[in-house]
């Protein structure tokens, strides 16, 4: 009897850890370092509610993120859940790397009505949903308050800027006034020395292939669109309205010297130039508000200028996708649901780093930013259906980026002629499909 008791005790001791501590580990990947601590908080809260699931968050920089992800698909070591970008959606969906969430959403009777319009649609194709929206982003002008004051301008002067590709409208006038040469002469004053600029009125790195914070908001305000409908197989880079917009940006740098040329901007980008006092204004995405607040608190935000067809900002949003090869799909789905839940979205909203995808979280987020002393109304103001356009969602995202970047470089370097360069690029792009 004693032997039997001992045996049972030993067996219980061996089994106990496995039964009590058996946990599924859900591996979650993301690239945004600012957001990682916030989502870690969500993970902690989730684990408190689900003791059988452990969330392991890995954050890697944008440049390595996609290569790591693709190679992890091959090695069978991909994260169970990962933050996904619309640019990669078509490729991952076509290769069946990401789970169609439609049946899971139906089973869970998941309410998707709370998302801002357009967000869920971006992640859907042919009735399948490949990611649950987690946030949204718009763009706004970021300006240095001190430099604005020094120029004798008020924040209200930036509240209603207009722009056109011919003379740049009031936007160009303000840019000129904010540009200062090393002798203290402003860009709109007599005796301004264009060869020795201390502060540029506008700093942009216009080589970004999607141009979200660089050129797309201007081009879209002329009525131009990347594609006519989602998943299109035809791009519109040959549209003269785009060539005109890009020519205006090129000339702002090369002719008027109010913005650094691409040779001057280098690879460090607009943020670095703002941080190092080389720029008075730039255009930025709402995901970078936290970074500016941290690194350059003198920066405030104003709405993007209104073009011939009004203000237009790209309305981008990230989503959480589940890897089809995940060995812990149930746990992964639970985590994705939690990420989209009121609890986690409120945590994200209160952190004030990014706008969560749920409509009713806007107020909380705005308040969180206000508590930090940041007015983000320039971003929320344009988050309407009339003032937004969808990012281009098509196959061959990376190839297209590579072709567009080379074309933009040629245009911005001043090579002739922009319309031809863009038409050639467009032909190359459309021949991919």
């Amino acid at each position: 009897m004693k032997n039997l008791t001992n045996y049972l005790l030993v067996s219980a001791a061996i089994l106990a850890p496995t039964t009590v501590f058996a946990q599924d580990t859900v591996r979650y990947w993301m690239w945004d370092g600012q957001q990682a601590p916030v989502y870690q908080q969500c993970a902690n809260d989730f684990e408190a509610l689900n003791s059988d699931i452990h969330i392991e968050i890995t954050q890697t920089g944008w440049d390595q993120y996609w290569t790591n992800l693709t190679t992890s698909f091959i090695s069978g070591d991909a994260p169970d859940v990962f933050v996904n970008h619309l640019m990669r959606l078509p490729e991952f969906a076509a290769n069946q790397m990401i789970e169609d969430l439609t049946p899971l959403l139906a089973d869970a009777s998941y309410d998707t009505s709370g998302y801002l319009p357009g967000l869920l649609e971006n992640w859907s194709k042919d009735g399948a949903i490949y990611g649950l929206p987690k946030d949204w982003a718009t763009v706004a002008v970021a300006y240095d308050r001190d430099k604005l004051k020094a120029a004798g301008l008020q924040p209200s002067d930036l509240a209603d800027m207009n722009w056109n590709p011919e003379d740049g409208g009031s936007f160009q006038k303000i840019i000129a006034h904010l540009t200062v040469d090393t002798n203290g002469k402003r860009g709109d004053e007599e005796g301004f020395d264009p060869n020795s600029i201390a502060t540029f009125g506008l700093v942009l790195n216009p080589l970004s292939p999607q141009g979200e914070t660089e050129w797309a908001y201007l081009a879209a305000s002329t009525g131009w669109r990347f594609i006519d409908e989602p998943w299109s197989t035809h791009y519109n880079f040959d549209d003269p309205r785009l060539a005109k917009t890009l020519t205006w940006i090129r000339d702002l740098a090369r002719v008027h010297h109010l913005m650094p040329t691409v040779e001057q901007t280098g690879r460090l980008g607009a943020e670095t130039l703002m941080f190092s006092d080389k720029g008075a204004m730039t255009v930025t995405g709402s995901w970078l508000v936290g970074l500016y607040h941290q690194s350059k608190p003198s920066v405030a935000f104003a709405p993007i200028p209104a073009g011939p067809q009004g203000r237009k900002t790209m309305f981008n949003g990230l989503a959480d996708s589940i890897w089809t090869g995940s060995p812990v799909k149930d746990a992964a789905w639970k985590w994705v649901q939690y990420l989209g839940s009121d609890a986690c979205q409120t945590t994200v909203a209160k952190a004030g780093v990014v706008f969560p995808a749920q409509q009713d979280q806007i107020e909380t987020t705005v308040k969180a930013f206000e508590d930090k002393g940041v007015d983000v109304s320039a971003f929320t103001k344009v988050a309407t259906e009339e003032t937004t356009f969808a990012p281009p969602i098509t196959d061959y995202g990376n190839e297209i980026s590579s072709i567009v970047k080379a074309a933009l470089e040629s245009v911005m370097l001043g090579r002739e002629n922009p319309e031809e360069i863009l038409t050639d690029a467009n032909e190359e792009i459309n021949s991919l499909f």
Partner: protein
Amino acid sequence: MTRRSTDKTVNADKESGLFGNRLRRKEALTGYLFILPALIGLIAFFAFPTIRAAQISLTNWNLMRPAHWIGFDNYGKLWADGKFWDSMQITLLYVIYNIPLQTALGLIIAVLADRLAKSVLFRAVIIAPYLISNVVAGLVWLLMLDPLIGLTNTFLTGIGIPPQSFLSSPDQALISVAGISIWRHVGFTALLFYAGLQSIPRDLYEAARLDGASESAMFRMITLPLLRPVMVFVLVTSVVGSFQVFDVIAVTTQGGPANSTRAVLWYIYENAFQFSRMGYASAMSMVLFVFLILVTLLQMRLLHADRSDLG
């Protein structure tokens, strides 16, 4: 008797032969054991991936879906791909910018170190950049060469030279990348030459000096010819290395501006990991592999790598 003694000799020979064979076998075994780690590395990291790449180059593998055999289609496509040939041309230009200057500078530094400064500190300083990874060197230079906030332009304008665009101008980007690479590798090249110089018998210089030879004559008639084995090693490894330039480009220019630094390895990387065209990228790798073998053989042939001028 004779017969018996002969037998004995034969037996003795046999025994010593057996013993010799065993010894030789044992020696051979020891030899194999010594090269085993390198052999394992060679097979695992070079031979196997090469064979695998050759295999992948005959498929349309996109990393995510199972590969399908498409024969030599990738090679046919490559032949007609202007971007591939452009990238080969850019790489060749990079090699031309890189090798002569790096070799000449390395040689000058080595000779100076040998003739003038024998201090260990000097040698340590010379080799220091080589101890930094290419990525770190690239990042440091990316900041230093930044047109607006970089230290280099501050220095240039300080001495009255107009600021330069360096990595962001299509005309200067490739030269700048080559410059970064030279800065990083020249110390190592110098160290190799320095080691080579130590193996040249000093009495040759003494004899030459007695004959009234000048420093430059000694350099031409003694140093340079006797350095040939080292020169071959330096040239073969640095030429092959230059054709494979990647990390500095990845950190500083990513093939831009306007494709001016899209060297062949960057183009291969783009196809493999950005466009998910692994089959096509492998085909390009195979072409580059064969091309580099030919370049190396040609170099060895031209430089008479198998002959020494000493003795």
